[in-house]
């Protein structure tokens, strides 16, 4: 199982039996924990030391190949500042997966991550797959959040958990792959019918979406 970087190479040409599933994924977390950097590393394989802050949100896509299916992530990278909180529901509504990111060198960001998890559990789709990412693991010397503490919290809440580093690329592809594996691929076939928040919502304002896409084609 591997991810390909370049967009063109990912689509197995002339393999009609391969299912393509689209999933909406949202990144949440305090500002400057490295959400945009994680996405950039995952989507383009790049890392910018001075990644600019995200205002509103950014959107990117990336495809990963599992054994028999291709998973296309539609990634919403959100603004971290608390003030932009009111925009967040617009992005996590209808998302099938979320990565909640914190910075292992900053305890406050972990607290904020917990709040995001709570909010997702309360407000987002009940079947949402949530992953917790402790980013900046390259700065382990300045660690303030213990691995065990985060792991215990993740286990309690049924979250996927990894410590990642967008700078060194550690665990970045892995966490997206783990999410891809955990996402329910079979039931999503029904997404075409309802077009509700649970599955296959490729649009943001899904309320009146007249042609809500099916998840698997």
């Amino acid at each position, binding site marked *: 199982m591997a991810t390909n970087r370049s967009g063109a190479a990912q689509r197995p040409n002339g393999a009609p039996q391969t299912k393509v599933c689209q999933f909406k994924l949202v990144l949440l977390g305090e500002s400057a924990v490295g959400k945009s950097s994680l996405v950039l590393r995952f989507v383009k394989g790049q890392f910018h030391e001075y990644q600019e802050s995200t*205002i*509103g949100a950014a959107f990117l896509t990336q495809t990963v190949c599992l054994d028999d299916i291709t998973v296309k992530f539609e990634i919403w990278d959100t603004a971290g500042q608390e003030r*932009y909180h009111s*925009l967040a529901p617009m992005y996590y509504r209808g998302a099938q997966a979320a990565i909640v990111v914190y910075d292992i060198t900053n305890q406050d960001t972990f607290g904020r991550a917990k709040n995001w998890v709570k909010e997702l559990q309360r407000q987002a789709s009940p079947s949402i797959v949530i992953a917790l990412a402790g980013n900046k693991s390259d700065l382990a010397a300045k660690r303030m959040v213990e691995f065990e503490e985060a792991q215990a919290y993740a286990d309690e809440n049924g979250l996927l958990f990894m410590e990642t580093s967008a700078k060194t690329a550690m665990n970045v592809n892995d966490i997206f792959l783990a999410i891809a594996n955990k996402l329910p691929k079979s039931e999503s076939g029904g997404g075409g019918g309802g077009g509700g928040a649970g599955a296959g919502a*490729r649009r943001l304002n899904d309320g009146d979406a007249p042609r809500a896409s099916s998840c698997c084609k």
Partner: protein
Amino acid sequence: MYIENEEDYKFAACTYFARNHPGETCGSNGLPLTPSSVTILSRAQRLLNIEHPNLCTYLDVIRGKHERIIVVAEVIGKSLKEITSKFTYQEITNIGRQLANGLNFLHDQNITHRTLADDNILLDNNGRVKLFNFGMYYMTGSGEEVSFPLGLPKYLSPETILKGGGPAADVWSFGIILLELCIGKLWHNLKPGPILRRILTLVHANNPAERIAREHDCLDTYKEVPENLRNIIEMCLKIYPSERATFATLVDKLSQIDDKELVTVKAERGLMGCKLQYLYHWWQLAGGDIQAELKKNCLIKNTPPILSMPIAILLDGCTIGGKTGALYDRRIAKYSLDLLKIRLNHIPPHDYYPLMHERKKEYDAVLLPKIIRERDTEYQFYRLLLFQRLLHGYPFTAPYIRAEAEIDIPPLVRGDVWAALLGVVGDIQDQYERIDKETPTPTDRQIDVDIPRCHQYCWLLSGADGHRALKRLLKAWLLTNPQYVYWQGLDSLTAPFLYLNFCNEARAFACLSAFVPKFLHKFFLKDNSFVIKEYLAKFWQMTAFHEPELATHLHEINFVPELFAIPWFLTMFSHVFPLHKIVHLWDALLVEGPALPLFMGVGILRQLRDTLLESGFNECILLFSDLPEIDIGECVKESIAMCRSSPRSISYRRFTNEAELKDPMDVVEIPMETLFTEICPRINLSDFFSLICQNKCCVIDIRSNLLYEKSCIEGSINVPFSGVQLGHVSQRALGLPAQQALQNAARQAHTVVVAGHANDDSARLFSEYLVKCAVARVCILHGGIPALQANVPSLFVTPPKKN
């Protein structure tokens, strides 16, 4: 005094290497350390603003390859080192007085020279004395940022050699200079080590000056020096820094000996009378190249890189072996302005003194893109001289400045012009100083994490000085605007002002404080959702007005501006584009006013139009997450054209700080909920009336046939709404007269005004229908026919009966 043909050199460059951080070490935040060269450059910005008759004005500090720093500054005449002839005591006193003047000024500015030496004291044949590169110690952070020692050994004070000392060290060096002028060069042909030892042995001397003279077998010569001058030398050459005189005292004492006017040089006229900064700028535009000249003079030597490879690298990043070039070269390369003189040879003398009121000559260059105009020597010559005049007369010349800024703004004075356009006046320095920028606040964390990623490609903003200044500005603004809070993006918004006013924080602050109410009124409220929503709705309406086809497509794929345009408007594009593009956008913004940004948004969409039209939702949003190259010049041109051709009232917003409109002819305000449902903007009666008078609109009356025939606006076309099939999207479905009128309107870029009843949905639905039919410039008459009948009954006629 020495007389020689005055040389034509106006400025000179010298070069050195900044310290290299060993290995690739990261700071505590995980970000790479700021390179020393960047720190030096940002510190040096302050020096660029220092002007004093006895100091050589700094013109530029450049970062070369491999942490090389190149310093460019004014030069005059020759250095004391080069002058071999003896000076009379009167001349020495005069030189001393000018030196002390310059140094006194520096100390007032809290700048220590520390590297005073005979080769950086320049003297011309008018007797003027100026200090060259006096800021070496300052710009290198007391020598922290370079790995070579600063200063020539023989001018160092004892405490400096012992790694201590403050500004008083300059007094010692000054004393040595005077002594040298009186008794000849000291410690000639000695190596640095022995010189330093000699200086340290002076510690035991009662009178170091005499002791030095004795060492050089010049005691007799020394005794011949007039007593008052000798006293001054001895006041400087005290072992204990605290016992040395200050420059303020020295200036006093020296003026008592020599109370003549300091040298006055008749101001030059013509090209050489222009500001040195301008001359340097034009020289560069004319093709002058500092680095090329340095290479020619062998101050920059290129050695094969293989030679500089270290033999071994330790794990901590320290290197062993490998040839590195000299870290600091005391030589300077002088530059003449011949290049520029030839280039501007043909300019008649009176053009050097432009008159504000005179209609200036038309330059061909005006037709070229701004980026090219900014690189045109002659064009910038005329523009700078004109702007210099205009700015000199500010605030009285404000209207002239605005009119000229509409054409373009010379980059060299952009900071001044922006401040003028924003109406910055008064004692801004004092106001800024009074604001508490230090006390910690809860917002600090957010500011701290945002600043190190705000426009960091710009070295000015990436250094520690830049970070601190940006933080002070943000804190000052938040403190003076308690009704507002810090929204991410405010950092980007502040950056252009800091970039243009790096050494004038107060002005950067005054500009920001004037900019926000004008362009971003209420945007930074804690709850700004209504303000933003209204802005985006207006932006969407403007898109429908000017780009109906695109608007229809985006509406169909449910692609709303909330998804991509918030950073555009919240930061006035400063979060979206790099600084060199923002300055051109804002040049236009400041002249045109607060409606322009809406049209700039449309201008960007227009440039991406073809791609957007053939893209679905995902492709569209991807496009904006990774915005393709936008031609800013084109965008500005288009947006200004759109802005000026749009009736003012269609871009009306409630959340501005402009006066509320009371006159029923002017009002165009509708409840927010209604605004969000309307794709087409509303036009007020005044604008409508003037369009009618200029015969620039096509009026479609959608009332019933019956009402229309009773009384209608002259020249209007009746398309009864009840007969329109909204599902049938085609202009042809409206009937031939309407179709022809719309085609005619499109050809002549007339505005299409939909006039209906006052309070029903028909006008909204019909205008939407027109947009879907790709009709441009559609708007709704606010208040409809009834309002018009009430206010301007004269417009109505009874239409001729059709048979």
